[in-house]
């Protein structure tokens, strides 16, 4: 009995942790992969991403954000052309500061081949997956980048492919070329200013909206958007998943509830004979009821301990050793253009651990009311002869 309940609790904890992990991973993919949780732009930039619509005094802005606990990464963008092996493709040039970027996103971890940007290698660039395919690029290949620089001149320079990214999102896959920010500035003749600052909040204690407001207060003249506003489609997909997963969870909990009910009912009914004897010895009904209640409670507590003892370590294990579904997705998988990391992590949140235990306890205690009442009110003789 305890074993069965403990097992149920264990499965529920693991299940809940997997669910949390799934939602969290999707959310992470939406933010940590590339966009960051928040982005700051010059007011008109998002409507018309012009090379000259920049955030000025970026050093001051970055410092202010960092002083308030936010990790912030500056980014520069430009459009141009990349040519290699006799073919050419339109590209989006992205100038970033790898040291700061690392604190905001995890794009540096999503390389298909080669290495991520490094300050020691100014000629090295990292390109998107489909772009590499379209141009037939492999790590080490030369790449000519052509663009119109900030002073109207022809920007063109020879680079070397340092790394090829895994699927990140549609835009990066097809056209992203990453440069060190100083390399980008030199090529594009843009001595100062940035187009975008991506931000990661230090903790989850505030809501997204609160953080957005707080950042807005720090940079009153700039436009601040959180990832839900930046990627409404992804936000909606996640919402939708959340609702359907919630539905699944409710149904699963009900199934566990029925099992527990079953177990508790059987457990009490089986011992009705015993209770009859106790009652014949003169124990009053309310004591019998409490006896059953306390016993059941202890059982559930034991079961919970088993559940926690088994469920938490397993979930924690899968928190660091994700289920690898890479083999299932032949090349990549994406939701609304955002690549999906085919690694399934557990996430051991308080909710994922407490909810199943609470459900278990509530169901168990509810389910003994009927048999315990019955046992308490039973006539001693009938009870002794019960089956």
């Amino acid at each position: 009995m305890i074993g069965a309940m403990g097992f149920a609790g264990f499965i529920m904890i693991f299940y809940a942790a997997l669910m949390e992990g799934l939602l969290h991973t999707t959310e992470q993919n939406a933010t940590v992969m590339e966009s960051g949780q928040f982005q700051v732009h010059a007011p008109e930039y998002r409507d018309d991403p012009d090379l000259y619509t920049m955030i000025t005094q970026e050093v001051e802005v970055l410092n202010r954000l960092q002083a308030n606990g936010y990790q912030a990464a500056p980014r520069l963008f430009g459009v141009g052309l990349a040519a290699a092996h006799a073919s050419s493709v339109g590209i989006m040039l992205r100038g970033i500061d790898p040291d700061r970027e690392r604190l905001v996103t995890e794009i540096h971890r999503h390389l298909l081949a080669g290495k991520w940007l490094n300050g020691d290698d100014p000629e090295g660039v990292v390109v998107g997956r489909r772009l590499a395919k379209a141009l037939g690029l492999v790590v080490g290949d030369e790449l000519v980048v052509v663009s119109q620089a900030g002073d109207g001149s022809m920007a063109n320079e020879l680079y070397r492919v340092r790394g090829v990214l895994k699927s990140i999102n549609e835009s990066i896959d097809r056209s992203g070329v990453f440069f060190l920010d100083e390399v980008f500035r030199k090529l594009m003749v843009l001595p100062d200013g940035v187009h975008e600052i991506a931000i990661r909040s230090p903790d989850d204690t505030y809501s997204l909206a609160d953080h957005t407001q707080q950042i807005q207060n720090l940079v009153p003249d700039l436009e601040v958007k959180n990832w839900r506003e930046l990627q409404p489609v992804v936000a909606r997909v996640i919402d939708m998943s959340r609702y359907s997963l919630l539905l699944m969870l409710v149904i699963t909990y009900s199934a566990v509830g029925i099992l527990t009910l079953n177990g508790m009912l059987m457990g009490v009914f089986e011992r009705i004979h015993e209770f009859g004897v106790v009652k014949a010895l003169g124990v009053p009904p309310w004591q019998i009821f409490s006896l059953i209640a306390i016993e059941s409670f202890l059982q559930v507590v034991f079961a919970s301990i088993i559940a926690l003892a088994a469920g938490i370590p397993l979930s924690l294990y899968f928190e660091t050793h994700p289920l690898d579904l890479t083999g299932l997705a032949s090349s990549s998988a994406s939701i609304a253009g955002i690549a999906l990391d085919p690694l399934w992590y557990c996430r051991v949140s308080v909710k994922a651990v407490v909810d199943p235990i609470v459900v278990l306890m509530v169901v168990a205690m509810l389910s003994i009311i009927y048999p315990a009442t019955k046992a308490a009110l039973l006539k001693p003789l009938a009870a002794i002869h019960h089956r």
Partner: protein
Amino acid sequence: MNLKLNHVAFLLFLMVVLSLTWASMSFATTTDDEVRARLILDLIDDLWRADSSESTVTMRVVTANYRRTVTMQNWTLGKNYSLVRIVSPQKEKGTATLKSGNVIYTYLPKTDRTIRLTSGMMMGSWMGSHFTNDDLVKESRMADDYIPRLGFEGDREGRSILEFILEPKPEAPVVWGRVVITVLAESYLPLVSLYYDEDLSLVRTVTFSDFVEMGGRTLPARLRVVPTEEPDEYTELIYEDIRFGVLVPESFFSLQQLRRQ
């Protein structure tokens, strides 16, 4: 997806700009007006572009974000071939654009690469100017695409002028809704051309000035393009020198030649 590719330098703006305006519209259609218009436009075209030419041009670009001045050399042969090579500034020296029929290449000396223009780059700015690459490519088709007629003939601002209205043919793949060209009545020298969109709103204005004698002809040495949306910006072309009838062989307009410094 295709990006809005500005900034790939190409060619031979001269030829484009000019022939946009004065392309010889060589085939016959009906009205007397049209016949006359074609005749005059042919004359203008001859004025500018003999079988071959060699010229030096300075381009001045003024935008809200930068000003720049570029000097370049330009060769043409017939309607199909042209080659432009930048002489200054030093940073861009040697950058060259070759137009051969429908194909356009750009040579980048800094990286020693030649790039062929693709459809995605068509609407990009040429050399940071107010011309698009598309402007350069489209010229040869101007003749096929528009029907000219004389819209006005008489005095305007104290000068005797002719005003031609070019309407695109119904199925012509051109972006303009109408082009209006004003020339001096006695010399057929161009004064101004106006480009309208399909709703017949003015989109850009090209004015011609500084009529001087060059290469044995009288020509407007200065040409200025002003986009209607940004009236403070402009691109100006100034002819330093032009010679006609120079001997340039077809082989001159080759990829090998393009790379030659």
